[in-house]
């Protein structure tokens, strides 16, 4: 068989046979967090009593090495509040797994920054959601802007160039893109803009915070005009109908090229889809992560090329491929229809026609029970009443950690 007998297939179709390992995956190390951001995709705050131990985490890293996972994106919650964070970071790097970790900066003092600058194969991503303390702290809590900037200053002072500043684009900050770019330039960092999804606590604030259609167009145009060197995590592929596609695979990666491992070892199709419907298995089960990745029914079904449902007749379908699965799911829309932010407006129409059936709620809620840094307490979720209490975490988000 010659190479030209089978013309290389579209990547979308190639993923149908599944990849031997995710290209990239997100690994949430803990649900504990010192903050209580209003839009947290993992509803983090309090540690889960069942989180993977240090030994279990190392076993997962061993699997990554065997599977040749090139690089893992470590997050949480706030991953650096785990006491074994630095040990696990070194272990991953020693085992040929590159790491980028996502942090609010709380532990990145000057010494930590110097240590990171001296370590190869590690990248840092600082989360910021406003170019001013006022805009940022309204979402992430009082003092969080200062924490992030101290971390950025420490990284820059330590000579760590190219770290990422990651911004979730909202109605409140969509007009600050130029300023974000200036901040990144000032610190020798790389700007990353990502889409707000109605995932985790994001569902509570989606209606208020997701960008307006006009802002979507402005964000798209800004990326086209100024986005050279700006990362997006391919999260704006739902805007491809507005013009040329933005750089990236331009398709939903869930279960195909990416997945999530959560703090208790559950494997979900995507960090924005923490719900039973997208739960593929658990790393603690026989066969570990590799078996879940390669053999789970959920991932097999996600990898089949999908016809696009009602979107397939739209002229934009090839560009946007029906948009984000998680955005549809957590706004109550059917997965075979338009994205809630469909640039043609079909999503808005579909939302208006929704019945009163309850919208799916994320699995689990590790949110803080009381106010944190000026963030109001969330209404007590009903699921809490049936869950084992963890008193140490109730008193302080970092108790016992």
């Amino acid at each position, binding site marked *: 068989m*010659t*190479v*030209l007998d089978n013309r290389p297939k579209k990547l979308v179709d190639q993923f149908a*046979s599944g990849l031997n390992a995710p*290209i990239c995956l997100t690994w949430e190390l803990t649900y504990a967090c010192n903050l209580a951001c209003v839009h947290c995709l993992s509803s983090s705050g309090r540690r889960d009593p069942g989180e993977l131990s240090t030994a279990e985490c190392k076993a997962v890293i061993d699997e990554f090495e065997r599977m040749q996972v*090139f690089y893992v994106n470590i997050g949480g919650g706030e991953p650096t509040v785990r006491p074994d964070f630095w040990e696990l970071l070194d272990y991953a790097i020693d085992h*040929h797994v*590159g790491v980028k970790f996502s942090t609010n900066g709380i532990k990145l003092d000057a010494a930590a920054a110097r240590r990171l600058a001296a370590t190869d*194969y590690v990248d840092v991503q600082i989360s910021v959601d406003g170019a001013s303390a006022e805009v940022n702290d309204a979402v992430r809590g009082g003092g969080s802007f200062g924490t992030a900037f101290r971390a950025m200053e420490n990284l820059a002072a330590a000579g760590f160039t190219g770290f990422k500043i990651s911004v979730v684009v909202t109605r409140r900050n969509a007009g600050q893109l130029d300023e974000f770019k200036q901040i990144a330039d000032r610190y020798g960092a790389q700007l990353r803009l990502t889409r707000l999804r109605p995932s985790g606590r994001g569902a509570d604030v989606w209606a208020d915070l997701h960008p307006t259609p006009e802002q979507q167009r402005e964000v798209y145009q800004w990326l086209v005009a100024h986005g050279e060197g700006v990362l997006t995590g391919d999260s704006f592929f739902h805007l491809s109908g507005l013009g040329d596609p933005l750089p990236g695979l331009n398709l939903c990666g869930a279960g195909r090229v990416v997945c999530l491992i959560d703090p208790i070892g559950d494997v979900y199709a995507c960090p924005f889809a923490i719900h039973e419907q997208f739960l593929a298995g658990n790393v603690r089960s026989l066969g570990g992560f590799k078996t879940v990745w390669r053999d789970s029914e959920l991932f097999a079904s996600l990898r089949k090329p999908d016809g696009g449902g009602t979107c397939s007749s739209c002229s934009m379908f090839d560009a946007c491929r029906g948009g984000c699965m998680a955005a549809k799911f957590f706004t109550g829309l059917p997965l075979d229809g338009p994205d809630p932010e469909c640039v043609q407006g079909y999503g808005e129409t579909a939302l208006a026609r929704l019945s009163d059936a309850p919208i799916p709620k994320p699995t689990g809620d590790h949110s803080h029970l009381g106010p944190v840094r000026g963030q109001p307490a969330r209404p007590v979720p009903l699921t809490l009443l049936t869950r084992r209490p963890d008193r140490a975490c109730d008193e302080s988000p970092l108790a016992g950690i």
Partner: protein
Amino acid sequence: MTTVHAGAASFDASSAYRLHRQAELRDEPFGALAYHFGTRRLSFLKAPILVDVVRALGDSVSVDAALQRCAVPESQRPAILQALAGLAASQMIELRT
């Protein structure tokens, strides 16, 4: 001798190459994924025969020799060389000194 121009650099098929020290290849059903830990670049190699050639580079006296070892038909040389030139430009493969 075949020289393929890829951007500013020339790719010389009579030279000896190898997978870059900081690059890793992972076999996949469609061919392979190549990742460079230094540049953080990721490439899809979309033909198994191309992957064979890349794996053969390190032990072959030249790119031409690697193509021979992998029995690349003459009609496919251009596509393979073009692909290798691209990989050299992105530093996935490097000259052996």
